[in-house]
């Protein structure tokens, strides 16, 4: 950061007028709710109840730890993250490398094709894939029928989350691909030329030149992807509503239902803070890994 030049101190505070509008919003709709939500998590606050909110200490948190639905939702969320992040990263990287090897117009057109699902709203994407996956008249099974297989896309507890992840891959991989492609564009051509002269081509060039240079972008994309995946909601809400047997009910959906189906605001707040804790743990671990390598 540049140090202050010879400006007089008198007008220093007036500069805060610039920051003031944002700080106001920031305080009212971010800081205050954070504090409010945190304190709520120690209360029994139920909108249906005629009893006023009551301070109950850590009872909400201990309820969560003994709540099988919480663990189930956490497990579903972790499964989604574990399925989604690696596949998204691999696909995005492959697509970016492939696109990078194409010439001008073709690259632009195909880049747009890969990116276009991203602009759909989740309801449209969800309606579409619900139809694809339908066992009786879905597009996939209509064709898989010819080779005599009928995967239970959304109806088996083992498969449903895989199907959701596959749909998510289609829906969201465009963003990471485009960012990685830009990262590839930013690699100075001299490196590549030098590598070529050293005889490093193909996989070796990818492994020893491209990958290290791309690493910062790759990690950035991955962290965002992980954080985003932990917050999965729209897909499962639209496609399976959390079923079958709650196998796709994510933590966020559980929080939503606790708060707005059952109106248990205190408990829902505690659940959100637990979600935050999980995300923070993962992010911290990542940053540590990033620094070590």
């Amino acid at each position: 950061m540049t140090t202050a030049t010879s400006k007089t101190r008198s007008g220093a505070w007036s500069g805060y007028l610039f920051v003031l509008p944002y700080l106001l919003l920031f305080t009212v709709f971010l800081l205050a709710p954070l504090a409010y939500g945190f304190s709520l998590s120690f209360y029994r606050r139920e909108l249906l109840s005629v009893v006023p909110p009551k301070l109950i200490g850590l009872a909400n948190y201990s309820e969560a730890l003994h709540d099988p639905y919480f663990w189930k939702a956490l497990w579903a969320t972790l499964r989604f993250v574990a399925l989604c992040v690696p596949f998204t990263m691999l696909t995005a990287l492959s697509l970016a490398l492939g696109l990078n090897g194409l010439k001008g117009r073709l690259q632009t057109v195909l880049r747009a094709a890969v990116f276009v699902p991203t602009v759909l709203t989740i309801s449209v994407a969800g309606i579409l894939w619900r139809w694809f996956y339908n066992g009786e008249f879905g597009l996939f099974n209509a064709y898989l029928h010819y080779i005599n297989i009928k995967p239970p896309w959304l109806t088996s507890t083992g498969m449903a989350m895989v199907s959701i992840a596959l749909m998510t891959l289609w829906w969201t991989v465009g963003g990471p691909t485009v960012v990685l492609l830009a990262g590839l564009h930013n690699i100075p051509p001299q490196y590549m030329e030098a590598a070529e002269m050293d005889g490093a081509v193909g996989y070796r060039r990818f492994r020893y030149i491209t990958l290290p240079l791309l690493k910062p972008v790759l990690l950035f994309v991955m962290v965002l992807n992980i954080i985003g995946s932990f917050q999965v909601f729209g897909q499962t809400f639209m496609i399976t509503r959390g079923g079958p047997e709650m196998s796709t009910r994510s933590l966020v959906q559980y929080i939503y239902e606790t708060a707005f189906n059952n109106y248990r605001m205190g408990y829902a707040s505690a659940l959100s803070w637990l979600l935050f804790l999980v995300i923070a743990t993962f992010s911290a671990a990542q940053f540590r890994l990033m620094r070590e390598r």
Partner: protein
Amino acid sequence: MSASPLPTKPNSRHLAYRINAVVMIVAGLLFAAPILLILITAFKPDSEIVKFAGILPHKATLHNFQEILGSPEEIPIFRWFGNSVLISSLVTLLVLTVDSLAAYGLARLNLPGKKWVFGLIVATLMVPGQILLVPVYLILNKLGWLDTPLALIVPAGAGAFGVFLLHQFFLTIPRELEEAAALDGCSKFGIYRHVALPISAPALATLGIFTFVGSWNDFMGPLVFLDSVDKYTLPVGIALFQTSYYAEYGLTLAASVLCTLPVLIAFLLFQRHIIQGIALTGSKE
């Protein structure tokens, strides 16, 4: 997929180039095909959708579209579209204004304690939005803003991402430019307005696109904060119209087409800018 030895400058006569091109064309088709399928299937009668027999309709019909467009009181799809446009535009305007001012103040002005303030703002980047859902809902209820567009517009201005992005961008502005402007008699605001903003047009455009798309596709916000159907935005409108009992796929797909076409056209027109904007953010950090 494509670890094939690609030369630095693609050569279209090279065999490897051609293989890669074919693979990528197939991939591109796979990504785009589902969207074409919505378009095609929306012209099928319901009974044909439920008994799938080929991609193309046997008896193409406009019935689904007629039904949707013919009864605005039943499916106020234009209303939802208008709401979406209004809300997303206002959110974008608010975020650009407020964030650029704050980012400029924090990046370029000599504010006491600004490191501390900026640190606090950046720290909240880690906070997942869901954690705010319940308390913001209760606050909006207190303010009486629930079920009004304000509930979706104003809280959106509190996000830290824009401030962070623009802050990093403003840091790169050469000090001399500002000094020259100051010599010309520009006020702090004048410098912000006539120097910082024009220079940062790409970053502002990126943030604007991000914000607009994010708001346009926001599902949770309208789902929780709105309850009157005529105030809905497109994503929730269409979602809540789908029912768990009936299989009205024809209608929902036709509604999806109407909802998607404008965005699709906008995307195809501006795709270069949109994609470059997104790429810029990624490579920035």
